[in-house]
C-alpha cells in the first residue's frame, strides 16, 4: 500500500508558524514542541540586491501525518492551516512525481 507524505514548496513559506501552532494545539504538546518546526535562513545579503531569506518547515518525530484527521476526511492540520498554502498531503509516489522539475521543494515521508 502506498505511503503518504508531505510535499512543501518552501520558496513561498512565509514563516508564519501556523503549522507549528496548529500541530501543537491539535495534540496538546508542551510549549515549543510540535510535529512541524520551521527553520529560518537569513535574511542575509548574498549579492547585489540578492537576499537569502527562507523558511523551511520540517516534520519531527511527533508527526503522525494526522492519521485520525485524515480518516475522518480532513486534511492534516498543518496542511489546512498553512497560510501560504505550501504544504500538499498525498501518496509519496505522486508527490515525488509532482516534485520533478520544481525548485525549492522538499518531500517528507513518515
Amino acid at each position, binding site marked *: 500500500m502506498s505511503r503518504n507524505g508531505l510535499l512543501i514548496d518552501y520558496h513561498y513559506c512565509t514563516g*508564519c508558524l501556523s503549522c507549528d501552532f496548529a500541530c501543537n494545539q491539535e495534540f496538546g504538546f508542551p*510549549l515549543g514542541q510540535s510535529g512541524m518546526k520551521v527553520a529560518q535562513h537569513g535574511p542575509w545579503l548574498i549579492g547585489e540586491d540578492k537576499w537569502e531569506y527562507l523558511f523551511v518547515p520540517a516534520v519531527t518525530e511527533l508527526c503522525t501525518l494526522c492519521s485520525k484527521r485524515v480518516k475522518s476526511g480532513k486534511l492534516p492540520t498543518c496542511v489546512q492551516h498553512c497560510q501560504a498554502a505550501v504544504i500538499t498531503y498525498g501518496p509519496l509516489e505522486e508527490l515525488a512525481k509532482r516534485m520533478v522539475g520544481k525548485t525549492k521543494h522538499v518531500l517528507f515521508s513518515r
Partner: protein
Amino acid sequence: MSNDTPLQKKLPWRWTEGDLTVTRSNAWSGPGCHEGCGVLLYTDSAGTLVKVEGDPENPFNQGRLCVRCLALPEVTYHPDRLLFPQKRAGERGEDKWERISWEEAYDTIVEKFNGYKEEFGAESVVFCQGTGRDVTWANGRLCYGFGSPNSSDFQSGMACYLPRLASLYATTGNFLVADCSQYFPARYDDPRWTPSECIVVWGCNPIISNADGFFGHWVVDCMQRGSKLIVVDPRLTWLAAKADIWLQIRPGTDAAMALAWLDVIIREGLYDEDFVEKWTLGFDRLAERVAEYPVAEMAKVTWVPQEKIEAAARMFAKSKPAAVQWGLAIDMTKESLPAGQAVTALWTVTGNVDIPGGMITTFLPYGADIWGGDWGYSHLPKETKDRRIGLDKYPLLRWGLPLAQADEIVEAMLTDDPYPIKAVWLQASNALACMGADPEKLLKAFRRMEFVVTIDIFKTPTAVACADILLPALTFPEKDGLRAVWYHIGNINKAIEPVGEGKSDATVAIELGHRFNPDSVPWTGAVEYFDSVLEGTEMTFEEMREAGGVLYPDYEYKKYEKALERADGEIGFNTPSGRIELCSSAYERSGLDPLPYFEEPTESPLSTPDLYKEYPIVLTSGARTWGSFHSEHRQIPILRAMRPEPLVEVHPETCERYGVADGDWIWIENHRGRVKRKVHATQIIDPRVINADHGWWYPEQEAAEPSLYGMWDVNFNKLIPWDPGRSGFGANYKSLLCKIYKVADGEGA
C-alpha cells in the same frame, strides 16, 4: 490527490464530531483583529472551548488561520481576564478595585454622564475606541445615542486607516482595495477574476499585519499565480526579499516616492490616456505639480537610487492589471492626505480602477451598519453636530467621516477649550501604551477627567491609570455578533458561555443605550439589532447562520460605467464632478491644497539638520509581529515566546558605530524622552535607520503606579508628539530622530 477540502460543502453552523461540538463562526474581536476569518470552534461536553480551526468552507481564509486564533483558548481562559464589572476603590493609578454588579455600573455611568450632559452639554462626554473592530458600531451608537458628537480614537491625526479612508472618499467618492478575488466566493477559480501582473506592497507587511480586512497571504496566493512584486518599505520584509524590486525608502517620504513615480509615468507617457480623459479631473494640474518633484531630486529625498525608482515606476505602469496593497506608513506621515492622494493617482492615471486584478471599489456588504455607518449620527440636532471637536480647525471633517479630531480632544481635555470635557468612555483601547502619542500628556488629560469608563477583555496600563469603572468585554467565542468588512458579511456565533460576567460590546451598546435614550436604540437586544442591519440580505441573523453564516453580495467590475458607483444612480464616480478628482474639489473647499504634495517629516536629516547632529539616527516603529495584535497578547505564553522582549532592529554597522551589540539593552532617546529596547542586529534595515517595536508593556509586572506594568520604560509613544497634519489627519509616528546608547548597570533590563 489534492488539497481541495474533501469536506462536504455547506456544513451546518453547528454539528458534532465525536465528543466535541463544532460551532462555525467568524473571528472578529476581541482579541483585536481586523480580519474576521472563518473559524470552527470546538467545545467539549462541559462546554469548554478546546480548539480553534480555520473554516475550510469560508472563502475569506479558506481554512487557514494565524497563530493568534490557533492560540485563542489561551486568551479566552487566561486567569487575568476581566470577569466582572469593577469600580475603583482607591486613587487612580492604584490597582485597587471593588467588584460591582452591571446594574450598579450602568446606574453610575448613566448618573454621571447625564449629570455632565445637564451641566456642560452632551459633548462634554467623549467616546473613544481602539482597533477592536467589532466595537466600532457599538461605540458610535453609544456616543450618538447619548447625544454627544464626539466619537474618535486617542491617536494623533487618527493616523491609522482613517487618513486613507478620508483621502479616498474625498477624491474618488469611495474606498478601493487591491483585488485578490476576495469579492468572489469561488475566489481564484472565479472566471471573472485575473491576477494582477504587478502588486505594489507599499508601507505595510500584510502577511503579518493583516490590516483593513485584507488577508495578507492573498498576496502570496497571487505570487503563486504569477503576480510580480514591488515592495516599498524601509525594512527588508519577507515579501521584499521575494520582490522583483525592493525600494528601501527613508521613513516618512512615501509622498515623495509616489510623486517621483508619477513624474516618470507622466513624463514618459506611460499613463492610460483614455481613462484619464474619460474618468478623471485635473490631470494637467497634477502633471504641473508632479513636475515639481523630479525623480532625480526625489531619489535624494527618499534615499533610493534614481534608477531603481524609475525601474519600479515603469514596471508598475507597464503592468496591467496592477494593484497597490498600501498600509499604515501612508497614514503615519503627517501630511498623509496628500501622500494618499499621490498613491491614488498612481493607480488612477494607469487606468487600474475597478478592473479585475486592479484597485476595486468597495461597499458595506448589503449596506449593513456595522463596519461603517451612520450609527445615529444624522439624528443629532444640528447645533450638537456643529459642536463636534475639531470642525473649526479642520473643515474637511465636515464632509467626510463624522469624527471628532483626536489631538483637539486631548487639548480640550487639558484646557476646557472650546468647552470642558468631563468624561471619557474608552472601548477596547490601551491608548497610553499603544495608539496615543506623548503618553505623559495624554495621562494629564485623563487625570483632569471627572469620570472615565473602560471596557476591555484584559486590564491594561491605561485602565489602571485612568479608569473609574472597568467593564469586562468578551472574546468572540463567547458572543453573537456580525462580522462585516467590505467583501462579505458573516455571523459571529456564540460557542461557549462567557467565562465570567462579561458582556459583548453589542449587548452593552443596547443595554446602556436604552438607559441613555430608549429612542436611540429601538431594539430589545443585540440579535434584534443584527436582524435590523441585515435588512439588505432579506435574512435574519438566525436565517443567515442557518444558510452557512457567510453571505457574499454580487460583485461587478467597472461600476462607474454601469451607474453602480454613485449614490444618485448616475454614471461615474461618487464625487461632485463624477470623476476621480486628481485635483480635489473637496480639499479645495476645505481650504487645503487640492493637489498632492510632499512635506519633509517635521524632524528629519533634511528639515532639522541641527537636531540631526544631536540625534543622528532616523527612528521608525510600528512593524508588526506574528504573535501580537499591537499591545495585546503579551500575557499569552505561547505567543509571548515568539517575541519575549521589545526589540529594536539595528544594522550591524550602526551597532559598531555606537558601541552596542546584538542582545544589548539600549536607550533610544530624543528630545522628548527615552525608551528601552533590546538590540536585534540585522542587515534588513538601513544603517542610518533603526526600527523599534511598539505597544509594549509587561502584564507580569506591578500594575499600580509608578510601574503601570513596567510601561514607562518601554513606551515608544514617549518619543512621539501630538502633532497632526494640516487636514487633521496623519502624524509622524514612523519618522523621528534619535540617538542610542547602552543601558547602564543598575538601570535594569
